[in-house]
């Protein structure tokens, strides 16, 4: 029987690449190689229509997904309106709308 001392062990917020399952991230990059060309400039997030109205942050979600932190990614991506403004400003020419749809398709279970 575990003793309750009145506090619990704080969970780390660090991303642990050794423990995370990166197979889905690799699958996403394999299906859409341009995803790995992202330089995380944040242009997509700055122009995001949904981001003006909600806490949606495309750059954050794509960074987490590439590091194997899938929890909540699907729900976040549901905030996207698929307007495509981000695609217009992306300096690497990434089909960002396509990335959103791919992440939703792959990470529906998370």
């Amino acid at each position: 029987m575990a003793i309750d001392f009145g506090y619990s062990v704080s969970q780390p917020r660090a991303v642990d690449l050794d423990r995370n399952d990166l197979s889905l991230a690799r699958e996403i990059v394999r299906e859409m190689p341009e995803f790995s060309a992202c330089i995380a400039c944040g242009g997509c997030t700055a122009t995001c229509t949904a981001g003006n109205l909600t806490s949606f942050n495309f750059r954050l979600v794509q960074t987490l997904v590439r590091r194997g932190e899938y929890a909540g990614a699907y729900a976040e991506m549901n905030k996207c309106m698929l307007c495509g403004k981000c695609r217009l400003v992306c300096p690497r020419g990434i089909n960002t709308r396509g990335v959103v749809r791919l992440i939703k398709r792959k990470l529906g279970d998370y």
Partner: protein
Amino acid sequence: MVLNSWREYEKEIADDRYYYARSCIRQNFFPGSETTFLRIMRQLGKDVYDDPRHTSCTGIGYHTDIVPLDTTMAVVARQFALMTEAGYENMAISCITSFGLYTEILETWHEFPETEQRARENLFKATGREFRKPKNIAHTSDIVFHNREAIRQMAVRDLKGLKVVEHIGCHYAKIFPKSGIGGSEFPYVLAGMVEAWGGQVVDYPERRHCCGFGFRNYLVKANRGFSIANSRKKLESMKPYKPDFMVANCPGCAMFLDKWQYALAEMENTTYGADGRGIPVLTYEEMAGLVLGYDPWEMGMQMHQVDVEPLLDKLGVDYDPAAKFLGRAGKYIGAPKPAGVNSFEGDRIYRIKN
């Protein structure tokens, strides 16, 4: 070109005639360690002045913002005055918090001479005392390190075949790197002792991570989860290397690495030792004392949360298990309740069945 960059990592340690500044928390957590230090020094023939008049350095109060800096400076100035009156010039400091604080205050006085003047005035007004600044300040682990070869020559056993995790207190050299042997990058004070006495130092990924002590992190109950998380990070990192014991030179590190193992065993049913029990945590005086053949119970090793008997067996120490909880004149001092951190995995299965 003369390559002398390593000199930056060296430290001058006085050879004899120390004024001993004890630690308030060590006397509670590891009550035998300071006595053991004095015993080692006596065996080495060194002159150490143990002054009953000196007080706490106020370090914990200072770091938790309840003692103002001027008060702390006046208290530290009084310790220096006691040292001056006793005719000593070398300070041997038992606690890492005190060591960091004394170093910080001397550095502050150097950078801002008006603060030293103020401390001198405050001390004189309050106590009528005056002081000279110490010529040499060393932590007592520095002094044991300094004498490691002499201790090896007097040793009755060595640490051969044992894997040792060493942990240096943050305030030893992370505040002022030049104040520690090896600085903050290559701290060698404990590793040097372990290697000199035949042990193998474990170099594991989180070796330099904080132990989780951090005054504000454990004094406030709501923050304790953060404190224990730091200890767990270290314990998880060292576990695969199967260390036989840990050694620390800071009272907080030794206490938290020891006692959080108990808490983690009770909260999560997890232990980190290779045999399914906890990993014993020693102070450097206890490690030196075992090498010199001192009795573990005389050194106060029964006060540890994680039992030290498995380590004593590995070292071949001849100890009396029945005398563990007998204090002075054979008086029974009380034994703790059985804890998960001290039982084999087999014991735990048996306990669950019950």
